[in-house]
C-alpha cells in the first residue's frame, strides 16, 4: 500500500456517525467524498456539517477561511462509481452484516487495488465483514465514538486476514487525522461495547429486580464512580429500541447472559417508551427537563 491516503470516502455519510467521520476527515485535510443512498440524507448531513463549522468559527476554534477550505474538501455523491478515486473507504452504513458485506463486494469492483476498506461497525466481526470482499487483507475495523467529530478515540481492529501493512497504514491515518487509535482484537463489541452493553443491561435488570429506583441508580453511579451521566439516562439517550438491537447483535455471538436484552427493556419498547426520542424511557422528558419516571 505505497500510495499515501489523500482521498477518503465515507459511505453512510448521511447518517449521524458517517457525517461525523466525514468532518474528521475533511478537517484533517483529506479530500472527502460523502456517499449515501439518499440525496435528502446528504442534504441534511452537509447542512449540519456547515452549521458545525460555523459554530466552530463563532467560538473562535476555527478561522472563517479554514472553514471554507474544509467545506471545499467535501464532495457528495449517491453513486458508488464516484468512489473510484478513494484511497480509503470508511463505511458507516446500517449495522447489518449482509449490508456491509454487499457494500464492500461492490466497492471492490469500483476501487483500485490499493484502496483500503474500513468498517465502523460497533458489534460485528471485521473478519466476517471482510470475507468475500475480494481484498480481505486490506480491510480493517475503525470504530469511531459518537459524536465522531468530538471524540478522538478510534478502536482499530484487524481481522484474521488483515495484513500488517494495512494495520500500520490505518494506524498512521488515524494519527494523521488527529485521532487517538487503540488496538483491539476482532471480538464482539471490541472494548467499548463489550464493556458497556452488558453493564447497561445489568442496570435495567437492577430496576426490574427492585434494587432501586432509576434516579437512585443513576445518582449512585455518578456519585460513587464519578461518571458524567447515569447509565439509565444514557440508555434513554441511546434509545431503548437501539439497545434492544445492540443486544440482538451481541447476544447470539457471545451467548453472554448479560448481553441478552432484559425483559423489562423489551416491555418498555413494546409500550413505546423509547427514551428521549419518545419523551419517556426510564425518565420523563418535558421541554428539556428530566424527571424520574
Amino acid at each position: 500500500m505505497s500510495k499515501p491516503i489523500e482521498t477518503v470516502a465515507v459511505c453512510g455519510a448521511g447518517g449521524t456517525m458517517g457525517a461525523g467521520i466525514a468532518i474528521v476527515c475533511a478537517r484533517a485535510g483529506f479530500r472527502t467524498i460523502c456517499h449515501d443512498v439518499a440525496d435528502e440524507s446528504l442534504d441534511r448531513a452537509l447542512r449540519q456539517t456547515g452549521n458545525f463549522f460555523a459554530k466552530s468559527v463563532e467560538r473562535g476554534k476555527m478561522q472563517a477561511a479554514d472553514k471554507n477550505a474544509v467545506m471545499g474538501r467535501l464532495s457528495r455523491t449517491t453513486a458508488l462509481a464516484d468512489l473510484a478515486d478513494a484511497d480509503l473507504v470508511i463505511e458507516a452504513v446500517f449495522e447489518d452484516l449482509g449490508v456491509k458485506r454487499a457494500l464492500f463486494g461492490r466497492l471492490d469492483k469500483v476501487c483500485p487495488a490499493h484502496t483500503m476498506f474500513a468498517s465502523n461497525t460497533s458489534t460485528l466481526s471485521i473478519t466476517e465483514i471482510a470475507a468475500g470482499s475480494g481484498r480481505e487483507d486490506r480491510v480493517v475495523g475503525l470504530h469511531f465514538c459518537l459524536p465522531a467529530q468530538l471524540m478522538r478515540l478510534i478502536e482499530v481492529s484487524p481481522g484474521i486476514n488483515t495484513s500488517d501493512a494495512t494495520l500500520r497504514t490505518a494506524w498512521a491515518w488515524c494519527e494523521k487525522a488527529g485521532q487517538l487509535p487503540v488496538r483491539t482484537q476482532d471480538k464482539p463489541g471490541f472494548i467499548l461495547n463489550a464493556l458497556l452493553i452488558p453493564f447497561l443491561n445489568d442496570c435495567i435488570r437492577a430496576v426490574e429486580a427492585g434494587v432501586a429506583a432509576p434516579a437512585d441508580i443513576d445518582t449512585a453511579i455518578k456519585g460513587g464512580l464519578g461518571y458524567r451521566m447515569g447509565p439509565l439516562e444514557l440508555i434513554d439517550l441511546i434509545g431503548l429500541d437501539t439497545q434492544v438491537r445492540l443486544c440482538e447483535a451481541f447476544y447470539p455471538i457471545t451467548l453472554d447472559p448479560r448481553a441478552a436484552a432484559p425483559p423489562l427493556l423489551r416491555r418498555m419498547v413494546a409500550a413505546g417508551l423509547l427514551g428521549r426520542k419518545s419523551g419517556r424511557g426510564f425518565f420523563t422528558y418535558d421541554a428539556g427537563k428530566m424527571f424520574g419516571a
Partner: protein
Amino acid sequence: MRYSISQRGESSSFPPGDAFLAGASAGGEVAIHLGTPIKIDATKAAILVELGTECLGVHTGEKAGEEGSNVLGFARYRNGRDAPSQLIELVRQPHTRPEAIAAAKVVFEAAGLVVVVCSDQAGRIIDRLVRPKYNAALRFLDEGLATAKDMDLTCRLGLGYPDGPIERVERGGLAYHHDVTAALFAVTGAAAYAPARRAVVARQRDGKE
C-alpha cells in the same frame, strides 16, 4: 437531628478523623452502629447499621418478606483502598418505616453526604453493577483483547469515565475485588460475579507482596 455512634474497630464508611464521627452526641434520636451489634429500640427515629458485603437481614432477621422496622443498613461507597466517596447507600427492607428512612437521610445529608435508597440485595447498587464489568475487563486482559492501558484509555475517552476499569480495580485492590465478588457469587450464583482469575491470584498471594 442528633445521632449517637456505637463503634467497634475501624469503620470503612467513616475512617478515623472523619468529621462525621466528631458530630455524634450521646442519646441522639438516631443510633448508628459501626461494627457493634444492634440493640432494638422502637423509640429511636432510626437505627443504622453499617454493612460490609452482608445483607441487612443478617442483623435483623427476615420474615418471608414482611421484615422491616426502624432499622436500616448503610454503607458509604468506597472502592477498596480508595478514600470513601460522598455516597451513602441506604438499605431498606420491604416494611421499613418511611420515617426511619427520612431520619437517616436527614442525618447523612446534614453531613454533606449524598443518599440513595436501595433494597436489601447483595452488592446494593454499585458493587452489584460494576463488579461484573471489572470481572469482564480482567478476563479481556487475560484473553488479549487489548492492553490494560488501552482498555482504560478507551473507557476514559470513549465513555468519559474518570478512570478505566483496570486501573480502578487495581487501585481499589484486586484482593478486595475478590472478596466482594465472592460474596456476590455466593448469594447470586451468577457466573458474572465469580471472581476473575487475577482477583483469585491476588487473594491467594495476599500478604506475600
